[in-house]
């Protein structure tokens, strides 16, 4: 009886081993069996082509524009400065020496408008081609503050990073669709960089030496973008008439709008007013 059981169990156990050899791969040992290689898209071709490019959008009528205000729906917040005047423990002769370093994560004007908000088309309008402007804005580091705080640059175009301070800084940029970099910037330094791809959202760059420093960069491939001014106002001119989707990004509120629809009528300025409660900004 016992012998009989053993006789059955041994082959059954063997089966277990054999059965598992049939699995495609042994994840532990590297003994690989029954694997295959194939070639993408047959040969002599890259990724599938097509995609209907060069379809020029039928634009009827004159271009319109979008003007508007981004508003803070609540009492003006009073954010304490990041570094009060004369209190910096790092490079105190330069950082926060003449003036306090403000908390720019939410700047609300007297009229309740929010500054440094990115408003832009979620994607390039179909079939339209744009030439980047001849000059790109540059980024400066002045009194341990990145200026501007909200930067818009074109994909594929060089732009300059400068350091006007008398101390070293660094720019640690972590984009999503592009490669990250981290450039040391000695006093008076200038570095030229560019990004290959447009980004869906602005991304943050920091300085490791002065941990309060940060700025946001949006990389675009179309001109339909604006950053709000101190009163939260913006204007996006030359929009093809029709229905568009705009994204609204503020660093504390992140995506205030993923894609809000606006109909732009030909030859006219469409005016909007978008209001957001303090809760959107973690207040």
């Amino acid at each position, binding site marked *: 009886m016992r012998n009989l*059981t053993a006789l*059955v*169990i041994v082959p*059954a*156990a063997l089966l*277990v081993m*054999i*059965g*598992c050899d*049939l699995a*495609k*791969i042994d*994840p532990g*040992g*590297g003994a*690989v069996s*029954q*694997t*295959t*290689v*194939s*070639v*993408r898209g*047959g*040969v002599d071709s*890259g*990724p599938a*082509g097509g*995609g209907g490019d060069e379809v020029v959008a039928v634009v009827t009528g004159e271009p319109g524009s979008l003007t508007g205000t981004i508003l803070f729906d609540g009492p003006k917040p009073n954010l304490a400065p990041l570094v009060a005047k004369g209190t910096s423990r790092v490079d105190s002769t330069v950082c926060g020496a003449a003036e306090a370093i403000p908390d720019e*994560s939410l700047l609300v004007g007297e009229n309740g408008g929010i500054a440094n908000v990115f408003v832009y088309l979620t*994607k390039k309008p179909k079939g339209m081609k744009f030439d980047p402007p001849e000059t790109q804005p540059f980024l400066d580091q002045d009194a341990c503050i990145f200026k501007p705080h909200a930067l818009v640059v074109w994909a594929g175009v060089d732009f300059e990073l400068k350091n006007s301070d008398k*101390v*070293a800084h*660094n*720019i640690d940029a*972590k984009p*999503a*669709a592009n*490669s*990250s*970099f*981290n*450039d*040391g*910037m000695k*006093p008076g*330094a200038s*570095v030229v960089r560019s990004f*290959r791809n447009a980004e*869906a*959202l602005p991304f*943050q760059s920091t300085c*490791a*030496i002065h941990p309060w420093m*940060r700025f*946001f960069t949006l990389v675009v491939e179309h001109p339909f973008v604006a950053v709000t001014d101190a009163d939260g106002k913006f204007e996006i001119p030359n929009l093809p008439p029709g229905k568009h989707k705009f*994204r609204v990004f503020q*660093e504390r509120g992140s995506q205030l709008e*993923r894609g809000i629809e606006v109909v732009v009528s030909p030859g006219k300025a469409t005016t909007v007013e978008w209001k957001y409660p303090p809760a959107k900004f*973690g207040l």
Partner: protein
Amino acid sequence: MKRSISIILLCAALPLVGCDSSRAPSFQLSEQSLTLSPFAQEKVQGELSAGFGSPAELVVWPELEVDFGNFGGTIGKVGPRPGTIRVADEGLGSQSNLAGDDLLDTLRGAAVVISKTSAVPESGAEGESTSTEAESNTAGNVYRVASYDLETRLLSVVDETGQPAKLDASEGDTVQVLGSTLQTGRNLYLRHCMHCHGVGGDGAGPTAQYFRVKPRDYRQGVIKFTSTKASVPRPSRDDLFRIVKLGVPGTYMPSFMLLPDDEVKLIVEYVRWLAMRGEMERKLNAWLFTSYSQAAVDESENRAELESEFETEWAEDSSDYIERFGNDLKLDWQDADKPESVVNPTVPRTPSSPESIARGRKFFLSKDAKCASCHGETGRGNGPSTEAFNDLPGMPPGTKSDKPGLFDNWGNIVKPRNLTTGVFRGGRRPIDIFRRIHSGIKGTPMQAFGTTLKEDQIWDVVNYVLSIPFEDKQGGH
């Protein structure tokens, strides 16, 4: 008796359990991909499968800057059965350094391209011409190897459906096997690397959880210790080769000095390919994440409309994006292997001297370099920046970490190197330290100084850094 029957049944059932289809090896989607809506996730997964396949079903995407490996021969005779050919001369192995069982392993399931002779340069069998041969020769029909006989050199191939291929071939045509490097690289990677770095190179293999210093996650294409300039985001093949051979001192990454050079090269090629797969996933996410994450679906008032919008956008734009991203991969990895991408100082090292060391130290502490803000005034890696509370990476801006410290691109807190120990992860040769300072440590707060500092200043800092471990042994300094 009854008992033995139940045992038998149990044992018979075991193989079924053991071979559950979940054991089929796969590359896992990244954490970010998993936050996409199911419909977007499916497309990302589909694209990654089309471009890269799975660990068991590798895909050769000829556009990529990867040496997928190819070797072959010429057709001696077509037939006798459908889908079979007899390879001329010395058979399929003659152009590769594979023989016997290794050759058969590589051939099993491999992709085969049969093309007309006109496409092949005359002296195509020379070793150095293989890459150009691959380029000129990728026009033809693709089949898959069903079997190969080493003695008779009879190769039988099947089509996509697994049926014997209907061959449009004649005597003298070329037969090429593609993906041999990738396959062998994969096998070596699974044996030597996977346990820490994970099947898909996510740095989360089974052993990784026990390590304080995390194994590299290749999926950003970022490698810390490179000889390439700050403007070149990827490592060269030589950089990866060196890391595998020498290990990373002070971490769990051992030296694989005992592996033969050619095996290390195959591993390097596979790691590069894994990195490209991860990058492609990351770029697809960068495109889709904002509009089509699960969070976007949850917020949306009309989910069906969002899904159909996605379907339209994917249908219209995906090929364009994939081509662009594929091109990014190609350019970035091509750049990394160009000789001009390597940081080679134009001025020779300043010989180490008390004066040079003193200059280096002064510079280390200066407002121009500010090394001390992270590494500390005595180089112990405890500068004031290590005490700051920084934003958590990958979270909405302003989300502070509850622990002080500097973060790397992978979301780990990294400590600036304690320079008093004399252990340097990227190598201890003066040129290694020079390159660390010149291009920084990619993906970390260690920034590239080469863009703004002069080379002789960097050499002084190199001399100082190399002297720090011995500071207390130099009376009077």
